[in-house]
């Protein structure tokens, strides 16, 4: 028979009190850990995905939209730009690399991105099978696409116009063929079907010609369009000069992914703060409920505590008993809330996976959460101390004789 067992028995002997305290505590822990994980991982995902590029150049419109669509592939593009308009950027001394991307089609909801193979290098994407694309209509599939659609090397598929599933127009004249499958990167590449720019141009040339019933004629190199240009600067001077230059002197716009994502996160940040505030408020209420339930317990069990003194328990041990009961409650509440939080992240991950293709990880106990646990345990200890003051003043003889 040890104190822990007795504390546990005491705790479960009042199931309704226990339920209320546990519910409040685990709710606050759930909210705090869930939102913390969500915002951290979401922010982390975004930062990781934009890291390879410093600037996006595309058609005029919302800069955030341009970043979301061209870098993160979650939004629709702002429009097209002419390849010849950005050719000067590709040769600019401040620019290290400038990769044109073109998109607008999908296969079963996964975006087909026309770009140069160096795009893969920027995301450090390695092939798990096959080779990179070389000719038009050869495709390298991101790991998640390959897995979800069960794509194998040599598989052939057609694309549909638009970025969502169930688009009306099927480009059924051209078959893409899977030539390579990528290893998982944990980044946006996992969600893409990558091909070269020519493939995209050919599909749409053909389409236009088909519709307008004009003789096939090759567009000149200058007339070719891309959706946007992803730029990595060589020197920080590029960051200072080029965006302003483009925005003021051309019909295109330049957006800085870092800046836009930061803006987005600060917008989300106020939401996160609100939820954290709510979690803190619930935590305070749960602390109060633990305090009240301990206080009640100690009042109701005054006689039992006095009895334990006659059994040879010291006053400190009785306090230990109350403290143990509180800490046990706090620990169970935390663990319960933490697991609920992770369950929430798992749910959110499923949701984001289908919507944006982002995976959230189920992580182990984090330092900040450990800190939260520490905070809760300190709270509980203080509550137990306040609630136990009567234990130190317990008059055993009087308590046991009062009938």
């Amino acid at each position: 028979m040890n104190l822990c067992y007795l504390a546990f028995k005491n705790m479960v002997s009042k199931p309704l009190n226990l339920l209320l305290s546990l519910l409040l505590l685990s709710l606050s822990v759930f909210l705090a850990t869930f939102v913390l994980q969500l915002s951290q991982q979401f922010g982390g995902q975004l930062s990781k995905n934009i890291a390879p590029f410093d600037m996006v150049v595309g058609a005029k419109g919302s800069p955030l939209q341009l970043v979301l669509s061209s870098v993160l592939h979650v939004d629709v593009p702002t429009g097209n730009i002419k390849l010849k308009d950005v050719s000067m950027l590709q040769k600019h001394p401040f620019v290290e690399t400038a990769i044109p991307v073109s998109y607008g089609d999908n296969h079963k909801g996964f975006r087909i991105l026309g770009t140069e193979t160096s795009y893969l290098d920027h995301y450090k994407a390695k092939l798990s099978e096959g080779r990179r694309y070389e000719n038009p209509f050869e495709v390298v599939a991101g790991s998640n696409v390959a897995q979800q659609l069960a794509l194998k090397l040599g598989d052939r598929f057609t694309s549909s116009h638009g970025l969502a599933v169930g688009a009306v127009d099927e480009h059924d004249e051209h078959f893409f063929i899977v030539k390579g499958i990528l290893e998982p990167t944990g980044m946006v590449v996992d969600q893409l079907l990558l091909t070269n720019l020519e493939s995209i141009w050919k599909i749409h040339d053909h389409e236009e010609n088909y519709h307008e019933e004009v003789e096939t004629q090759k567009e000149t190199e200058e007339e070719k369009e891309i959706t946007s240009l992803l730029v990595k600067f060589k020197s920080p001077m590029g960051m200072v000069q080029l965006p302003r230059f483009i925005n003021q002197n051309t019909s295109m716009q330049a957006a800085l992914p870092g800046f836009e994502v930061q803006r987005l996160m600060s917008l989300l940040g106020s939401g996160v703060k609100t939820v954290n505030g709510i979690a803190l408020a619930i935590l305070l209420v749960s602390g109060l409920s633990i305090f009240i339930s301990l206080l009640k317990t100690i009042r109701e069990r005054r006689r039992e505590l006095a009895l334990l003194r006659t059994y040879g328990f010291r006053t400190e041990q009785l306090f230990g008993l109350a403290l143990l009961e509180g800490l046990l409650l706090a620990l169970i509440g935390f663990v319960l809330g933490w697991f609920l939080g992770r369950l929430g992240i798992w749910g959110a991950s499923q949701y984001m996976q289908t919507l944006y293709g982002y995976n959230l990880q189920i992580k182990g106990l984090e330092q900040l959460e450990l800190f939260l646990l520490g905070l809760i345990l300190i709270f509980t200890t203080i509550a137990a101390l306040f609630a136990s003051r009567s234990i130190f003043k317990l008059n055993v003889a009087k308590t046991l004789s009062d009938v």
Partner: protein
Amino acid sequence: MVKTLNLRYAYQNGDELSFPDIELTPGEHMLMIGPSGVGKTTLLYLMSGLLPPLRGTVSIAGKELGSLTRKKMDSFRGEHIGIIFQQYHFIKSLSVSDNLRLRQHFSKSASDKKRRDALVERLGLREHLQKKVTKLSQGQQQRLGIALGLIHRPKIIFADEPTSNLDDVNCEKVIELLKEEAEICKSSLLIITHDLRVMSHFQNHVRL
């Protein structure tokens, strides 16, 4: 075994009580009688070190209680003193068996299952071991109360008005039980009572 000398106690309201000296040899049984309100229960708590005397000393098994530190006093009480209350007290969240184990916690018989088994057998509590104490009948609660006073083989058993709420038949039973059990664990027994029915069972009387 138990010896008190010039004991005086002061209540919080200033009233003072003085007690006659008491001496019990090992295994001796003694009855302490007197009308209610004369301080019998107070003496019990003084002798078990739960109340500090104003003056005088209590010695149990050669140890003067006043000389023990608080910590030592607590463990001494847990090991050597058994109290049977008039109004039985239990830990309500625990089963009968756990209540008994808890009482053994601070004694040398902490893991003495044999002692526990033998005692519950004699007191007819065997089938009720896993029950919550609140589910016991009045009679079973009485027997458990007695068991809790002596399961740890104390040197001295204090019984505070053990028969006050009982009819004649049960009164006889409880007295027999107390005497028997005290005999078995070779404990000294001090019964505090104002119940005249108990008196014929003991030769040794102290009047307060």
